[in-house]
């Protein structure tokens, strides 16, 4: 069994929280005491499934989702982590955050409304993040008498909208009615014209590949204690045939410690390792050790940034940058006068410290960072390095 991280997004009142609630309800992930709380909170007879995920007082008072809610359920095939993200435009940054931590997206479209400006924003975010798999759940099919025509229209409009984005993910379209559970966990009997599977079946079936090629091995140093190096595997897998480098200098042999079953020989992407070596060079937190023969070691990069704080003008351009265990200060060339909250823009970064990247990590959009304000220390932006600035 593996973990699948899925996020849902939609425009206001698309029924997104209801869809998550329905998925949890129909896969028996809601306990009776929580059901009783829902019934008690709700004045009407209809079960308000949104109350399951809107966990903050402000959200319940306003009737909207403000921040990401995490929900967990397990089927025979996968353990799911569902992230319910806000639909309101002003909380797009929270949606970006939720989406960044997932491998697949469920984007809701109200069949009676069609594509909205928020739908386009969601598609843009999914494209920027390089999300491998996106499902468009065409919701509220009950409002169009479960007829195929409305679904087809939505599907065609979405397909056209997708054409303007490069790096198209794998896409599916599923007609659903979240309120009644049609095509959520169980296939709907009201739409026999639809031959595909229900939503849960779709997200259960997908496998997201990881990078397991030994020539792409990259370790990032989390920190050092005494003579030990603590690191995580950013990509690849280890094969002693490929020598390892640090700042373009070949390293002496690593002395592997077989820690909880992870030795250097068996380590894989995403794992945590510890090792030591004779004649250890001066390592620093955030440094990378790699097998790749062509690292890109530079200070100047082109990046895409999602601004997550109050609007600023271009004169505010110095920030702290955190990327994994790597930290530095950075000057940002905004290339525009004004930057507003939720803007996604291409910028130039000038790092104070050199960063070591690789063609394959850049291509997979894995050189990710956050920017924080040097006075307040708040996280103000998220971004991905695209390429070296030449």
């Amino acid at each position: 069994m593996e973990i699948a991280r899925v996020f849902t997004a939609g425009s206001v009142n698309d029924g997104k929280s209801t869809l998550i609630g329905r998925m949890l309800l129909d896969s028996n992930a809601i306990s009776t005491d929580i059901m009783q709380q829902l019934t008690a909170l709700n004045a009407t007879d209809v079960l308000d499934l949104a109350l399951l995920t809107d966990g903050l007082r402000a959200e319940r008072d306003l009737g909207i989702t403000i921040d990401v809610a995490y929900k967990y359920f397990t089927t025979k095939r996968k353990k799911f982590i569902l992230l319910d993200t806000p639909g309101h435009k002003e909380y797009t940054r929270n949606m970006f955050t939720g989406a960044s931590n997932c491998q697949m997206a469920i984007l809701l479209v109200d069949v009676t409304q069609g594509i909205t400006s928020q739908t386009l924003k969601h598609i843009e975010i999914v494209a920027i993040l390089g999300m491998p798999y996106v499902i468009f759940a065409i919701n509220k099919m009950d409002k169009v008498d479960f007829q195929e025509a409305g679904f087809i229209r939505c599907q065609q409009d979405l397909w056209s909208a997708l054409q303007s984005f490069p790096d198209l993910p794998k896409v599916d379209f599923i007609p659903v009615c979240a309120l009644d559970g049609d095509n959520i966990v169980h296939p709907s009997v009201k739409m026999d014209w639809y031959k595909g599977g229900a939503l849960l079946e779709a997200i259960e079936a997908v496998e997201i590949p990881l990078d397991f090629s030994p020539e792409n091995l990259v370790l990032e140093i989390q920190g050092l204690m005494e003579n030990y190096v603590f690191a995580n595997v950013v990509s690849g897998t280890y094969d002693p045939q490929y020598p390892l480098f640090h700042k373009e200098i070949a390293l002496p042999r690593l002395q592997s410690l077989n820690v909880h079953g992870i030795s250097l020989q068996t380590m894989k992407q995403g794992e945590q390792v510890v090792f030591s070596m004779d004649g250890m060079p001066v390592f620093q937190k955030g440094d990378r050790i790699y097998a790749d023969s062509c690292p890109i070691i530079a200070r100047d990069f082109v990046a895409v940034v999602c601004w997550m704080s109050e609007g600023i003008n271009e004169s505010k351009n110095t920030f702290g940058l955190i990327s994994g265990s790597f930290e530095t200060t950075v000057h940002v060339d905004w290339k525009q006068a004004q930057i507003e909250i939720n803007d996604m823009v291409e910028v130039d970064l000038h790092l104070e410290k050199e960063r070591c990247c690789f063609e394959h990590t850049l291509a997979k959009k894995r050189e990710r960072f956050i920017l924080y304000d040097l006075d307040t220390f708040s996280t103000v932006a998220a971004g991905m390095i695209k390429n070296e600035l030449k």
Partner: protein
Amino acid sequence: MLLNQEVRCLNVIPLKMDYLKELESEAISILRSAAFQFQNPYLLFSGGKDSICLVHLAMKAFYPLQVPFKLLHVDTGHNFSETMVFRDEFVEKYKLDCHVQSVIDSIRNHKIPDAKGKFPSRNALQSVALLDAINALKIDACIGGARRDEEKARAKERIFSFRNDQGEWNPIQQRPEPWNLLNGKIHPGENVRVFPLSNWTELDVWNYILQENIELPSLYFAHERLCLVLPDGALMAFNPYMRLESGDELVECRVRFRTIGDMTCTAAIASNATTVEEVIKELEMSKISERGATRLDDRISPAGMEDRKRQGYF
């Protein structure tokens, strides 16, 4: 169908880590981030299964070295004696350094009224003692075993959860954590709560306990105990702090605890599960949530947890 594609596998080779390994790896990465980002991190230890798992994960995270965190136990004075014995043996066995912060001291020092009522719970008062410890020991990060699946306000919380210089949580101004990039930058006096088990469920914790053969206090397994049966069926272990009223009847029951909090606010559940395997089987069949089954302190209002967290709670 015009455009609908068949759902297919992008890659037929299953290369993913097993899910417990993935959760473990995520937790270890968070623990290492805490160790390398903060000056004086403490691990909040209650003697419950989640914080025991946290210590186990910390031992793995920093092997072959010692756990680089001191433990902090906020002691309400209402703990089960089994928990206290377990804590002392555990600390001794693994050579850990455990600071005990007494809620009773905080009650005295701040001249705040002690808990009253039939079940006098010092649960909310723990926040005061925790903040006292944070100030006195100059703690900049508290690593806790809270999980997002426990409660709907917790479900909204970050992995590195920022607290201002009053120890307060502001749930609608949280630092975004895209790609789980953790920002632990703070000013003196502020602190961060670190939650490595954020994405674990109760069942994940138990499956991990089974896989890793982790020792737990005996309270987690079925035993005979004198209990007061509440009108809603909840079983409160008889303890010296509860005030019995006429008509209250104590019954010998076979029970275990799903969570271990104060004796005064943690209910037992009827159970015959004596092993980790049996507990897992029982949980898989259970229709009641972990806190719903056991915590009187959550039954105050829908925002009970959010309000306590805003004031500095774990």
